[in-house]
């Protein structure tokens, strides 16, 4: 999931009787499937949780450009380079749609960016892993964007209008990302033994972090229960993760690669693939800032922002001058 472990500020779920009249009316609208729009009344917890979730999602899109940026100048062909640039530009666009959606809740984009740059705001754990070979561009598009799509499709139906509308656009564009990734994997797997080994190596490194993207099991989580009641979370982390595993197995078989999980096997009874235990200590460690690239990602992001300051200031000065002259 692009937004992981989103806090709702709740210690337990509120019952109907405990809700104020406004809160009850609000919950009834949500239960009836009516979208909440920016000017509508909403509980403070709903507003704050959405800001956290949407901004974390936006930050993930923005930081998500960095691992791929590593390969723009090293893409194997001009065509692959143009495609990769278009994908990275899409990620910037997705971040901007999401910041706009968050801004309708009464925060400014500059405030959100400041929270990212100071390290206060989180982004998805997945982007703190390094991109060591060209095959990683394939694995990221296929698995990471694949996981993102699984997570984002239900959000197109979420209760907050601006977020749902942003997700519709994002999902449409995201399928290009997943396909271009799989296309890179196919090309490598049809290549020589060394190229196929590159693809296998990328799968080995990205498989488990991709499954971790959905976050730990939230069957017992009060935050998830609250978010589900508000319809800003529409499926459990485990359900989404299972979907990812189920769809990835045949895709991997087609490539002739092996998923790095000895416990992975078809379960005819459940109609799903069983898979091995996830090392959650790795996930928490990355979230805490100790992943392989946390410091590097944030430093690169802040540097890019600061190096662009003179240009943003010049644009503002130009606009001010012409306004004054008008």
């Amino acid at each position, binding site marked *: 999931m692009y937004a992981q472990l989103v806090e709702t500020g709740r210690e337990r779920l509120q019952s109907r009787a405990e809700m104020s009249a406004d809160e009850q009316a609000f919950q009834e609208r949500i239960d009836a499937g009516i979208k909440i729009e920016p*000017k509508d009344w909403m509980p403070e917890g709903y507003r704050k949780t959405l800001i956290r979730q949407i901004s974390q999602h936006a930050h993930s899109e923005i930081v998500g450009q960095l691992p791929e940026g590593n390969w723009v100048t090293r893409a194997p062909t001009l065509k692959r380079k143009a495609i990769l640039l278009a994908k990275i530009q899409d990620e910037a666009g997705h971040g*901007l749609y999401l910041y706009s959606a968050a801004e309708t809740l009464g925060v*400014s984009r*500059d405030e959100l960016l400041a929270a990212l740059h100071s390290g206060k705001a989180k982004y998805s754990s997945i982007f703190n892993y390094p991109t060591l070979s060209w095959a990683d561009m394939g694995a990221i598009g296929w698995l990471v964007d694949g996981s993102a799509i699984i997570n984002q499709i239900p959000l197109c139906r979420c209760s907050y209008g601006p977020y749902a509308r942003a997700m519709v656009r994002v999902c449409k564009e995201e399928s290009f990302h997943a396909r271009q990734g799989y296309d890179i994997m196919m090309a490598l797997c049809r290549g020589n033994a060394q190229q196929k080994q590159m693809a296998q190596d990328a799968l080995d490194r990205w498989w488990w972090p991709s499954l971790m993207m959905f976050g730990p099991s939230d069957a017992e989580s009060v935050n998830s229960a609250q978010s589900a009641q508000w319809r800003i979370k529409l499926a459990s982390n485990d359900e989404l993760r299972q979907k990812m595993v189920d769809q990835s197995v045949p895709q991997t078989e087609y490539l002739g690669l092996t998923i790095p999980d000895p416990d992975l096997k078809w379960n005819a009874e459940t109609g799903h693939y069983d898979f091995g235990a996830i090392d959650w200590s790795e996930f928490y460690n990355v979230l805490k800032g100790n992943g392989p690239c946390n410091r590097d990602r944030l430093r690169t992001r802040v540097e890019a922002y600061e190096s662009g300051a003179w240009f*943003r200031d010049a*644009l*503002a000065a130009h606009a001010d001058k012409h306004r004054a002259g008008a």
Partner: protein
Amino acid sequence: MSKEWPLWEVFIRSQHGLAHKHVGSVHAPDAEMALNNARDVCTRRNEGVSIWVVKAADITASSPGDKGPLFEPANSKVYRHPTFFPMPEEVKNL
């Protein structure tokens, strides 16, 4: 930190002769940059042939509380719809 750029609402007319439709918002220091940003953010896949940008602060919007007085009067005027008037089978072209 530099001062914040104002917010602009973006409207796009798609290729099929439809009206401009709201598609999102961008930040920009002036109208010209707002158009440039709207092009980059909202038309990467041939979504349109024309862009309008309007300063968000210049838009006056109805508030959710006014929904009743504004829109309810239309509810009781079903005769504004042609289907309100059943026509005899044998009468044509109406």
